């Protein structure tokens, strides 16, 4: 199943969809449950939750009451076993699509798959350190130096957090169960469109 999510003219403006996350983050300050010094993992969980990271990085599945998060794949990104067909052709302003897992997205940038943020050393962030995570967010590039991060990742918004906040988020991500899940590589627009 494919869900058309928005009428969005360009990837640049996709970030606006996720401004809700930034708004939530901005509102966090006055009622923070813990400081990084007190318990960085708790604070990191708070920030990851408020920033809506789960919305894209934890796959959705169909439960008895409708779509729900697949907690067995908490923040594990697009499930490697879910092979997506080519995205629907864009029609006018309807140019962004996502799958029912909310982990694969298509748009003018091609097809992107949300990353495995668990500490699995082979397929997740297990070999990263906090600085790599910070650099990735700050520079909006994989490992801080490599390929650009793709929409809908709102890196520019998350980058408004402090280094301490980002360290806390990383500490939380290191604390969750590792999930071995090799997320597919992104698909370039020309290839995505040409795939039968």
């Amino acid at each position: 199943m494919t869900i058309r999510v928005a009428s969005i003219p360009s990837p640049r403006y996709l970030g606006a969809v996720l401004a809700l996350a930034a708004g939530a983050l901005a509102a966090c300050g006055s009622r923070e449950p813990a400081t990084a010094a007190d318990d960085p993992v708790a604070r990191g969980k708070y920030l990851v939750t408020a920033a809506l990271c789960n919305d894209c990085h934890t796959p959705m599945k169909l439960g008895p009451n409708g779509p729900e998060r697949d907690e067995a794949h908490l923040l594990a990104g697009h499930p490697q076993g879910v092979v997506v067909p080519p995205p629907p052709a864009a029609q006018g302003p309807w140019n962004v699509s996502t799958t029912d897992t909310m982990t694969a997205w298509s748009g003018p940038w091609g097809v992107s798959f949300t990353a495995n943020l668990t500490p699995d050393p082979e397929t997740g962030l297990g070999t990263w350190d906090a600085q790599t995570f910070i650099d990735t967010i700050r520079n909006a590039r994989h490992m801080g130096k490599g390929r650009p991060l793709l929409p809908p990742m709102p890196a520019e918004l998350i980058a408004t957090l402090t280094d301490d906040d980002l360290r806390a988020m990383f500490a939380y991500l290191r604390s969750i169960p590792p999930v071995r899940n090799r997320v597919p590589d992104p698909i370039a627009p020309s290839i995505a469109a040409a795939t039968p």
Partner: protein
Amino acid sequence: MTPRASALVLASGLVASGPACAPTAGADHADVAPLPVRLADTGLHAAGAVDVLAPGVRPFSPQYPLWTDGATKRRWIYLPPGAAIDATDPDAWVFPVGTRLWKEFAFDRPVETRMIERVADGSWRFAAYLWDGDGADAVLVPGGAAVDVGGGPPHEVPAVGDCRLCHDGPTPVLGFAALQLSPDRDPAAPHAEPVPAGAVDLPALAASGQLVGLPPAYLVTPPRIAARSPTERAALGYLHGNCGGCHDDRGALAELGLDLRHALDEPGGATDPALRTTLGRSGRAPLPGDPDAARVRIAPGAPDASVLLARVRSRDPQHQMPPLGTRRTDAAAVALLARWITELD
């Protein structure tokens, strides 16, 4: 340059662009005078003369230059009087406070000049200056810019944050070190530039007294990549100059286990890090266009199965290497690397 910035090209020639949160000049160095707004005030040229170098500014030419879409380049260094580079670690020179280096990028005409400077707190700051059309002066563009250079992809002037992507590693100064300044220059190095008159090289630098601690052996036998063939020497040099700044096992990407710099403190030959970490070695990156293929960095004898070569050839932003600073494939490098990989069979 961000993807957003890189998408901006105006028919008129250029447009200021860059990350929305790009640092302003000098923002990271509150105790240091702001960066000059005009290149003319950076100390590169004599007052009022863009074609005359200021006293103490010396040209240099690395033997393995970085590919920037065919730009022709000129480079200069200024070391404060009485100060010297500490070359005790031949692979990580330590530059004195006050060091400044400039690099000019030209496409038929000068387009931009970059500068890096070591400031009083020991950190480095970065600047890019965009030349006006008649070459009279260049102005600071901290947010970067995209410049039409006669059709095709634009030349991307980096924002301050982009500079740090390559220059925040173990050796912030790239292209000015023992191997790059060796007088034993590689005649097969792609895009090697003529050594300009008055250029400083390793012996000249040592003789000037502004290089201390260099192991004397490097003056007796100038640094040279110990390769098994001229092709391999040039290939390893290219990887050193174009990839080793980031793919350095002392830096932020160490966990990748991919080391493409040529370290003088390594014995070289078959144990060269660039060979040890690539030949027959699997990596994480896929072969562009064939995600199901084996992910072998360099498959000896099989250029088309070698991920490293495919990524050097690619200009798909998701696969290309280097990931920034270039929008056009370096055909000469692709040919060299393919020839080398074929030889490895």
